[in-house]
């Protein structure tokens, strides 16, 4: 059933996603790293669904929906900020601080 290896793989992918979020500064790439994290979690759900039944897979279905919705809104937000600043470099987006 490959439960352990799947969970391990998902942990590794999640960590890589987190690392990406931590080190990248392009908002879009950052968002992609977050998608990677979600994918890692999905893998966990799928792996666990083997023992717990269909509900895990259904959850993944919902997660994908959410991811799609987030992508739509997120990319819209990125577009909106790009209109203001002509950049998606997060290091330059620090109007708000203190």
């Amino acid at each position: 059933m490959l439960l352990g290896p799947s969970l391990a793989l998902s942990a590794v992918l999640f960590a890589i996603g987190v690392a990406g979020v931590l080190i990248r500064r392009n908002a879009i790439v950052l968002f992609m790293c977050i998608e990677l994290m979600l994918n890692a979690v999905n893998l966990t759900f799928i792996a666990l669904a083997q023992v717990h039944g269909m509900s895990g897979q259904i959850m993944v279905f919902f997660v994908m929906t959410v991811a799609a919705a987030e992508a739509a809104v997120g990319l819209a937000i990125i577009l909106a900020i790009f209109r203001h600043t002509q950049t998606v470099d997060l290091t330059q987006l620090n109007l708000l601080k203190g």
Partner: protein
Amino acid sequence: MDVVTLVFGVFALWAVVSALVCVTRRSPISSAMWLVSTMFALAGIYVLLNAEFIAAIQVLVYAGAVMVLFLFVIMLLNVDAEIGPMRRSYGWVVGVGAALVLGAQLLVMRGYSVQRLADEISTMPLGVDPSLVFPEGAAARAATASRGVVGGIAEPLFQAYLIPFEITSVLLLAAAIGAVVLAKKRL
């Protein structure tokens, strides 16, 4: 080592390498492409893990639709590759360090086998039969076998998980309105 494990290993390596490359590429486009690659690898694993329907959606919706949206935006904005180092050096150290520690913390779950899970969930003494503890898993497999992949997932989705399913409609509506409001040129 059986064939399934071997294939899993291949897919896993593929996924990890693709993910690593994805987060380290300067160019957003190539990052996106490597992410797609990761998703394909994961879809392969999903098949190994008896989630054929999800694997299909993964390819169709995720790798297909969502990532195309990403690429579309990247192209639209014509974002160049990041210039210079991605982060200052200590940023790298902190970022990678935190991620490594986090990963290590989560990686302890590699020790989970079905048997261990069964032991933990069950209140009975150690060494119970997992199939007794996880009847739902067995039932799901049986349902898949009898009604096909889609039927197995559809029934609970539209019965037990009807409410969440309906909520997703609200979610998508909100996302649609939001995206439109934010992205359209003039209000």
